[in-house]
Each structure stands twice: as C-alpha cells, then as structure tokens.
C-alpha cells in the first residue's frame, strides 16, 4: 500500500504549480489592454515556470521509493458541513505527475506557438489569459485530492474551453459552438455531481484516499451506479458516444486551442477520471464493460467521421474522438488496461498536438482556409510543417518505432486479453485510422496544388516551427522512452495497478495484424487520393460518406430527441404561465373588480335610502339578538 507523504521540500510548492498560471490569467484578464505588449510573454513565462517546477518535482520524486511517491498538501478546509468535508488539498502522485508534465510542457510549447499564430489578433492578451486559465484549471483537475475539488478543475477547463471556442465571438458559429460545448458538458456534469453525491452517501467521504480505501465494501450495484455516473461525466468531457457532438463544432476555436484543449489535454480528462477511480471500476464490472463498449463505439464514430470530413481540423477532431475511444476502451479493461490508457494518452497528447499545430501552420499559410480539397502539394513550400506532420502521421497510425506504435499496440494486445471481439474491432479501427490519416496527409501535402488564386503558401515563422519540431521529436521518441527507459507500467502501477493477463494471441501476432490493417488502410487511401486526382468539389459520395460528413446525424438526433422537446416545453410553459397561472391571478382580480362594479350600483346618492338601509340593518341586528336570547 502506498503511504501518504507530507508535502515537504520542493513538494511544498505543489500549490505554486497552479498558482503561477492562475496569477498569469488574473493579471492578463484584469489588466486589460495595458498588458497587450508584454501579456503574451507573461503567459508563456508562467506556464514554462510551472513546467520547470514540474520537472524538478519529477526528479525529486524519482529519488523516493515507489511506495513513497504520493505527496499530500492540504491548504485549508474548503466545504465542511456536518459529515461532509472537502479540503482545498492537492495530491501529487505518479499519475498526476505525468499529467502535470504533459499539461505544462505541451502547454508551454503551444503557448510559444501561439505567440506566432495569434500575433495579429487584437485581443491576444485575452487569448493568453484564457490559455493560462485553462492550464491552471487542468492542473487543479489532476492535482485535486478529492472529487469535489476535481470537479472545480473539471468545470474550470470547461469554462476555459467555452471561452476559447468562442474566442472569435463575432462569428455566430463560434459563439453557438461554445454554448453547445458547455451545455453538452453540463450533461456530463450531472453525472459527475451525482457520482460525488452517491460516493458521499455510500462512503461518507469524497476524498480519493477515503473512497478508494473502502470502495470494495460497498454493494456492487452502488459501485456500478457510481461507475456509470463517472462514465457519463467522462463521456461529456472526452466527447465519447453519446455526448460526442460538441467536439467537431469546437474546432471553431483558434487552432492552438484545438491542439491544447481539444486534442492533448482537456478531452483526455475523462480517461484520467476513470483511471483515477480504478478502485471503483475494478469492482464495478458492469460499469467497466460499459466503458469498453462506449470506447469501442466511439473509436468507430470518430474514425468514420474523420474519413469523410474535408475540413482538416474537423477530420483531426474525428481522429481525436477515435483515439480517445481507444484510451477509454483500454481504461475499461481494468488493471490490464489503465497503464496503457495513460500511456496512449501521453503519446497521443504529444503527436496529436503536433498534428493540430501542423494543421494550424498549414492554415496560417493558406489564408485560414481549412478545406483540404484546396490544399495539395504543400510539401514543397512548407518543408518543416511537412516533415513534422509526417512524424505525427506515422505515429498515430502506429508505425514502429514511432510513439503511437507502442501505446496503441499495447492497448490492442490488452483488449485481446479481455475478449477477442474487442481486439478485432480495435484492429479494424486501426485500419480506418490508417485510411483517414493517409487521406489527410496526401490531400494536404502530396498530389497537385489545388490552391485558390490569391493564396501564396509559405512556411510559418520560427516561433511556430520550433514547437512543431519539438513535438515531432516527441512523436518519434516518447513511446520508446516511456516504455523502455521510463518503465511506465512500474511507474504507474502503485496508483492504478497493473497485471499482465493471458492473451489468446501472441504479441507478435497482434502487432502483425494491426500493421496489416493499417497497411490496408494506407493502400486504400493511396489508391483513392494519390492515384486519382482529388476533385475540388466534393463528390456526392455513398450514403456512408454523406452520413459521415453530417457527423452520423448526431446533431439531428440530439435536435429531435432533446433540443426541440425542450424548446417546445419551454414555449408551452410560457403560454401556460401567462394564460394559466397568471390568468388565474388576474382573473381573480377581475372577478373582484366586476363584483364591486355591480355592488356600487346600490350607492344611489339618495341619503334617505341609505338611512332606510341603516334602520333595516339595525332592526335585523335587534331581531337577531332577540331570537338568540329567546332560544
């Protein structure tokens, strides 16, 4: 069992990891236009400082024995009522360590890249403020030591994502996409809230240590419920089926945002959540199986959408969805999969960030056109982007020795250990990955130029290409480094557990099979897009292509099932409120008014008739008194 270490030495600065970017965000957002000149640099600086601090902590952590690598820092009591207690407290262990590094290092690279990408934007200090806010929130998410604080980070990254998707607010489509992302995520938040409540009701605590310590004592039904609710939360944040519809629209945001938030870090928070809650999913078998199903379904939804989109960013977004599907599926496999889910998350974070930034670099040179049908032959003019994109392309397809090969192959192999069907499906998914990535690569960099007339493609400035190169190097070496030098399984094992299972097929066989599938995919793409010219106008296509272009009608389904009924109910209730409830209120007022209108007719103005009625009344009173006395 791991022991909780007090946060001493360098670890007493855990809070500073978060405070640095948070302070940056505060200065940039409160400072206003005054910070325009130096604000972006401040943004880069704070995140880089966090990255350096993270690396120092990693080195320090490696000095300790594996059981002594969990550090706990409690700042103060946050929410405490009756038996409920949630602290403002952070926990740094091996799992959060790798996340801290991913977030701060990739985050710093993307900040640097944005210096170039956003250099012409009027509101760039705001952009850097939001990015800093995102980094801070994401760090809260992975460093929290209880679910309630995790929820703060969870929603904080959602807010940053909302702000950044809608960064170009003057575009109605961007504003709509931002709202959509937030509202769909809010559905996931319902799952999150309920999971936290159910944990408190069951265990009387919401801290990781407390919940995991007694998780196996709860009934399996309760644990399955908690697991499914956490899965709902993960589906929202990680754009998994059935809450996947927002991610493609989220591409309205600036490309660095897509790279950092909607590819490398935030969307993988669902995987973190499931891996972090491994103590629950280990026992909750139904929930775990559902996780695998959701993951596998999303692998295909994402891949199919990615295969048909002509918008380079949306195609990459489909790919992200699909790759996260791999991670979620792996996380659902239990102790044989958690480690590889995180492993793939890390490699994916690096190579997908590289791919997105590459796409951004292409767009930068193509007047922000995103239509791949108007690209082609860019390898000659954008040599750095071309090479680095190729590294990402090979990595995501899982070609040895690129990073993706190691991580994806481990997932597929682990899937076979659980069920052959899952393994086969994931291999087919890998084949489709090969197809759409090759399609993207060919349409963008190879073939003939199909540029619009006024476009003069050019390589991006150094400040953008240097991060590309660094990420490409990461795409090449990270997998090997983590697996052979970093021993990712043993590193993460104390936190998420690891056990190798019995596999029906050998490692070599599964590698051979997946490489075969990828090869097939590449071949098909080569035949379709390299041998034949790519038309500028998209062909009509088969029903599957059209469905995929329409994102498999996910938006239409949501519209019919949720959005329309909601607005219908809303309008009906407005009518009911005006006519029904308020109608009753105003009606009773009108009734009193009408009644008094009748009654005032008795005020005739003849004083003697008033006197008569007074006498009459007096007589009645006397009579009544007499009668009462008499009886």
């Amino acid at each position, binding site marked *: 069992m791991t022991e909780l270490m007090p946060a001493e030495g360098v670890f007493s600065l855990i809070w500073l990891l978060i405070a640095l970017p948070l302070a940056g965000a505060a200065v940039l957002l409160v400072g206003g236009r005054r910070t325009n000149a130096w604000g972006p640099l401040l943004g880069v600086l704070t995140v880089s400082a966090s990255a350096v601090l993270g690396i120092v902590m990693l080195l320090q952590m490696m000095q300790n024995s594996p059981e002594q690598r969990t550090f706990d820092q409690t700042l103060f009591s946050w929410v405490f009522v009756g038996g409920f207690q949630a602290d403002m407290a952070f926990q740094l262990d091996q799992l959060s360590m790798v996340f801290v590094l991913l977030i701060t290092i990739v985050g710093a690279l993307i900040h640097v890249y944005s210096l170039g990408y956003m250099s012409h934007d009027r509101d760039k200090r705001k952009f850097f403020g939001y990015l800093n806010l995102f980094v801070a929130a994401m760090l809260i998410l992975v460093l929290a030591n209880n679910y309630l604080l995790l929820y703060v980070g969870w929603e904080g990254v959602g807010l940053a994502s909302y702000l950044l998707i809608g960064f170009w607010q003057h575009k109605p489509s961007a504003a709509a996409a931002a709202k959509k992302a937030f509202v769909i995520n809010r559905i996931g938040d319902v799952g999150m809230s309920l999971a936290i409540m159910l944990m408190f009701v069951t265990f009387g605590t919401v801290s990781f240590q407390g919940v995991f310590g007694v998780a196996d004592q709860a009934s399996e039904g309760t644990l399955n419920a908690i697991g499914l609710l956490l899965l709902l939360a993960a589906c929202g944040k990680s754009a998994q089926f059935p809450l996947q519809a927002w991610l493609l629209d989220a591409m309205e945001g600036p490309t660095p945002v897509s790279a950092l938030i909607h590819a490398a870090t935030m969307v993988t928070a669902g995987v973190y959540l499931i891996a972090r809650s491994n103590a629950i999913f280990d026992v909750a078998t139904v929930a775990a199986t559902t996780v695998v199903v959701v993951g596998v379904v999303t692998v295909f939804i994402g891949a199919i959408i990615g295969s048909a989109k002509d918008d380079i960013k949306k195609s990459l977004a489909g790919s992200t969805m699909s790759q996260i599907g791999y991670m979620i599926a792996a996380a659902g496999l239990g102790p044989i999969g958690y480690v590889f889910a995180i492993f793939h998350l890390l490699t994916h974070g690096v190579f997908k960030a590289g791919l997105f930034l590459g796409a951004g670099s292409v767009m930068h040179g193509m007047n922000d056109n995103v239509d791949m049908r108007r690209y082609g032959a860019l390898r000659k003019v954008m040599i750095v982007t071309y090479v680095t994109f190729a590294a990402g392309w090979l990595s995501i397809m899982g070609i040895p020795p690129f990073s993706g090969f190691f991580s994806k192959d481990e997932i597929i192999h682990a899937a076979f250990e659980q069920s052959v069907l899952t393994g086969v499906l994931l291999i087919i998914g890998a084949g489709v990955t090969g197809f759409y990535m090759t399609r993207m690569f060919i349409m963008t960099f190879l073939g003939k130029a199909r540029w619009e007339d006024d476009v003069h493609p050019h390589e991006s400035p150094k400040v953008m290409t240097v991060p590309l190169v660094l990420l490409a190097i990461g795409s090449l070496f990270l997998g090997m480094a983590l697996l052979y030098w970093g021993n990712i399984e043993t590193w993460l094992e104390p936190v998420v557990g690891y056990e190798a299972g019995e596999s029906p097929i050998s490692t070599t066989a599964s590698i051979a099979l997946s490489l075969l599938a990828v090869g097939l995919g590449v071949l098909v793409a080569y035949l379709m897009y390299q041998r034949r010219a790519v038309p500028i106008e998209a062909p009509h296509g088969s029903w599957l292509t059209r469905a995929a272009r329409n994102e498999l009608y996910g938006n239409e389904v949501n519209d019919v099932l949720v959005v329309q009924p909601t607005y219908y109910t809303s309008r009906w209730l407005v009518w009911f409120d005006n006519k029904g409830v308020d109608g009753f209120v105003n009606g009773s007022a009108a009734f009193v008014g009408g009644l008094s209108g009748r009654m*005032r*007719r008795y*005020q*005739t*103005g*003849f*004083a*003697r008739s008033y*006197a*008569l009625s007074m*006498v009459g009344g007096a007589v009645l009173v006397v009579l009544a008194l007499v009668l009462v006395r008499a009886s």
Partner: protein
Amino acid sequence: MNPSSYVVLSALLFSIGAIGVLVRRNAIVVFMSVELMLNAANLAFVSFARMNGNLDGQVVAFFVMVVAAAEVVVGLAIIVTIFRTRRSASIDEPNLLKY
C-alpha cells in the same frame, strides 16, 4: 318610579326620530330628528346607568352630548352651504355622491 318606563320612553323617542329621518325631506327637520334619536339614546344610557347602579352610562351620555354638539356645528354648516348654492334644503336633491 319604575326605570323601565324611561327605557320605553327612550324607545318611543328613538322610533319617532327614526321615522322623522326617513320620511321628511327638509334637511333641517331630518337633522332635528337625528338629534331626537341621539337624545333618546342618552336617555337610555342614563336609565341603564341608574338600573345598574354605576356611572358608566352617564359618562357615555356626556360623550354623546359632546359628539352631538360637534356634529351640529359641522352638519349645520354643511346644510347652510348647500342652501346657499342650491336655494333649497331638500336632502333628496343633492345626489352627486353616487357611483
């Protein structure tokens, strides 16, 4: 003498006053009838005070007198004003205060 006779007298005076208020049109006469009713009430109060052997009723009678005096002042002033504008003291004619 039997105090109940005073009560009967008071009832008679009250009824005469009430009938006077109802049947007469001249405001001055109506006014006098009201005074009659008030004094009938006074008589009843005093008689009952005598019957009960305490002073409460007599005290109330004084109150009534004061109120009646005040009422006469205001009432007569109104009647005079109305007479000046309308050249009539009939209480049926001024009927502007209606619905």
